[in-house]
């Protein structure tokens, strides 16, 4: 019967997608064909003005989009939806030289790609404080920190021990004490241990990982981990205010099975309910301080089965994906991606159930609270609910993947737990974001739909296509879709912060803050020194010359070039690219970059400023002369 229900839902979903795509694909053409009237001109003009930001004017919000398997972060402006910057993190980016100079190469640790999903802005008392942006790498099991002072990646932590597929990351606790991370693909731990999937239930383990953030400088370190049953942990969200000491992680495959030859999509969809895992992190922290941990893979690992009282499972319909917490911290919203509802759990009732041990039993040692004891409502939002964000008027917005729509419902006030409105988007929305919509004080007005497919809603660009970002105006009684942008693959989630919260963003590094001992500030001090087979070059760049402009060396020499951009003017970026060599970079004004490479190709190789800088930019060049080996 359960199986039948699942197939019914799947069939309906497929039908809905097909119907939707054929119904609204290329709206313009369809309108022309059917002679149907489009929106009136006044309406178009009204909508256009909502996103129009005249040249020279600034957007009201920054949007930080994860770049998916591009490994980068994209910065957009809202409401204009203009792409302003790409911040390279896990992938090489010749436009700034990320992944080409020594410092970034060392940070990337030999990997030149990552899969970043969930950006998280640092918070103080549940509000964005504008200090750092954290971003996970699902593939490499890493977390990176970007400073919002200069929009540069400062640290990449990981790979996290014992965690395979760090998907449920990097969600901050409400004072940025910890960043949550969790295993999406359970494995035998520590990493490197081999056990066959036949022994999946016994030998494979899930891990929830807490990363500590230094409140002064943001330095991240692995704090502790929780060993869990071999379920697949999907997403997480920290509590706030009353629930500030807790965080929540969803899981699917609570069947804890992985069968050789049988697709997980079947085995993991057997049960009617999976779990939202509730973790009292303050409690776990205390146990860890007491030393109640085992060391596995170099991490302090806490076992909630041995020490009960801190980790609980809440049954949630069905293969829940996103878990979100209302701005007041009182309700937990579980989105069962294979059920047409979101489930609302009451945090205070959860505390009581835990206190009264109101459990229906345990699953693999984790106590399961009785669903009816904690669940306040189920809201029939539609097919495939994934994530929920909030506005300033007591409404919540849930993305519906299967239905390709956004559902609006009321979580606070009058019609609590009632559906209010629904709007279709093109197509297959994943995450959803709103201005400061996951904080204790959402700002409202906009909802951003992060759609997975752009299918035909832009000029044809061949088989590889962008995704679609759609801006919905939520200020009126009905939601209104007013703009579509097409980002590079592939934003999963976004954080939207009021622009004025980012104060004193630097555009030029002051000389005093450049701590590089090889920084050179006067072209007169630019020089070359040889030490055995190593040739060191202290280089300066300022409009419009590179000094030294001739480097002589021998084939096979190890070259180390310290390039300092000595400009003090914003946006006076100078590139350093060497023809024929895999060397490129763009030091910012006041920054020093170090490039190390072997001069293995004899000949004369021009190097030049790659980043347009001035009227005499073309003249900003030099020669690397590599004398061939004597034969």
């Amino acid at each position, binding site marked *: 019967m359960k199986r039948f229900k699942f197939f019914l839902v799947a069939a309906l979903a497929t039908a809905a997608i097909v119907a939707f795509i054929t119904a609204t694909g290329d709206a313009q053409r369809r309108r022309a064909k059917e002679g149907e009237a489009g929106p009136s001109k006044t309406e178009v003009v009204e909508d256009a003005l909502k996103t129009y930001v005249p040249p020279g004017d600034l957007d009201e919000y920054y949007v930080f989009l994860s770049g998916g398997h591009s490994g980068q972060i994209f910065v957009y402006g809202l409401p204009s939806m203009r792409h302003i910057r790409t911040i390279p993190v896990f992938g090489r980016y010749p436009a700034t030289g990320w992944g080409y100079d020594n410092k970034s190469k060392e940070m990337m640790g030999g990997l030149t790609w990552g899969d970043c999903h969930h950006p998280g802005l640092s918070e103080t008392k549940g509000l964005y404080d504008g200090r750092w942006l954290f971003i996970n790498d699902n593939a490499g099991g890493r977390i990176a920190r970007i400073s919002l002072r200069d929009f540069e990646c400062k640290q990449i932590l990981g790979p996290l021990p014992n965690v395979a597929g760090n998907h449920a990351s990097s969600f901050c606790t409400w004072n940025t004490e910890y960043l949550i991370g969790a295993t999406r693909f359970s494995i035998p731990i520590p990493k490197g241990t081999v056990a066959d999937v036949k022994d999946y239930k016994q030998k494979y383990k899930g891990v929830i990982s807490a990363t500590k953030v230094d409140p002064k400088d943001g330095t991240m370190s692995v704090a502790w981990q929780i060993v869990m049953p071999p379920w697949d942990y999907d997403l997480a969200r920290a509590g706030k205010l009353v629930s500030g000491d807790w965080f929540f992680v969803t899981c699917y495959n609570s069947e804890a099975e992985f069968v050789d030859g049988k697709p997980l999509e079947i085995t993991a969809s057997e049960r009617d309910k999976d779990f939202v895992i509730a973790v009292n992190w303050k409690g776990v922290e205390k146990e860890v301080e007491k030393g109640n941990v085992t060391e596995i893979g170099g991490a302090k690992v806490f076992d909630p089965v041995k020490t009960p009282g801190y980790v609980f499972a809440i049954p949630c319909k069905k293969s829940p994906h996103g878990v979100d917490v209302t701005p007041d911290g009182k309700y937990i919203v579980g989105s069962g991606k294979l059920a047409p509802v979101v489930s609302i759990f009451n945090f205070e009732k959860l505390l009581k159930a835990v206190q009264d041990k109101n459990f229906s039993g345990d699953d693999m040692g984790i106590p399961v609270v009785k669903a009816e004891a904690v669940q306040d409502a189920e809201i029939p939002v539609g097919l495939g609910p994934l994530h929920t964000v909030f506005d300033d008027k007591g409404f919540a917005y849930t993305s519906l993947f299967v239905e390709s729509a956004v559902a609006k419902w009321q979580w606070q006030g009058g019609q609590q737990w009632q559906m209010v409105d629904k709007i279709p988007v093109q197509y297959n929305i994943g995450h959803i974001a709103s201005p400061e919509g996951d904080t204790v004080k959402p700002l409202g007005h906009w909802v951003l739909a992060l759609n997975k497919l752009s299918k035909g809603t832009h000029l044809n660009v061949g088989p590889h296509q962008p995704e679609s970002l759609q801006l919905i105006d939520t200020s009126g009684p009905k939601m209104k879709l007013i703009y579509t942008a097409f980002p590079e693959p592939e934003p999963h989630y976004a954080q939207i912060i009021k622009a004025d919260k980012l104060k004193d963003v630097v555009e030029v590094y002051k000389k005093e803050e450049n701590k590089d001992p090889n920084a050179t500030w006067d072209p007169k001090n630019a020089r070359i020194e040889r030490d055995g087979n190593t040739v060191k070059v202290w280089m300066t760049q300022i409009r419009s010359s590179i000094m030294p402009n001739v480097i002589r060396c021998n084939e096979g020499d190890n070259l180390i070039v310290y390039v300092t951009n000595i400009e003090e*003017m914003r946006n006076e970026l100078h590139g350093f690219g060497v023809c024929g060599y895999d060397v490129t970079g763009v030091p910012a004004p006041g920054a020093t970059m170090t490039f190390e490479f072997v001069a293995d190709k004899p000949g004369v190789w021009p190097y030049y400023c790659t980043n347009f800088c001035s*009227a005499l930019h073309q*003249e900003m060049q030099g020669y690397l002369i590599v004398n061939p080996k004597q034969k």
Partner: protein
Amino acid sequence: MKAMAVLRSVLLIVAAVLILVSFKYPMWYMYLDSNNFPKGLGMAIWATHPGDTPDIKELDGGLKEVNILNHYIGMKEISQGMTVFKVLPPVLVSAAILCLIAAIIRKKWISFINVIWFALISAGGMATLFYNLYQFGHDLDPHAPIKVAPFMPGFYGEHTLAQFTTYSDFHWGTYLLVIAFVLMVVAWALDLVSSRRAAQSQAKSSN
């Protein structure tokens, strides 16, 4: 009579102090606005050195940027090494000392010399500024990458130069000197008045 003597001394001492205080403030400044620099550039000249205008934090750039732009057209660098910054400070200090001497010695000829000396300094200073600006705009390196016709940079008020609009004006460094000069002239006038009165009263008493 006594009140007059005290007044002239006070005026001259204040003038000396104003001259010294004027070192703290720019004498002259220039803002350069263009579409390349939406917030503008600002440079200023003190008696002792060239530098950025005090509001540099709100601007796109200052003296360094002006020099970078100037080097393309072969203009000389506006630097601390210029002769004027070696000559002007000791000359102004000499004027301040002369004021103090005149404050002590109550003679109309010394306050007259004081006025003349300062007038000469002022005229010389203006001429130097004018000459320097002229030189900067005309003594261009023939090997410069960009060749422009020689020009006179804006001395005062609004001017246009290529895509730049420049605004130049004097500042407190100069204003304080002007006030000091006025005080010196008043002191001299007081001396003139009191010496004439003295002569009259002498003539009366001899009658």
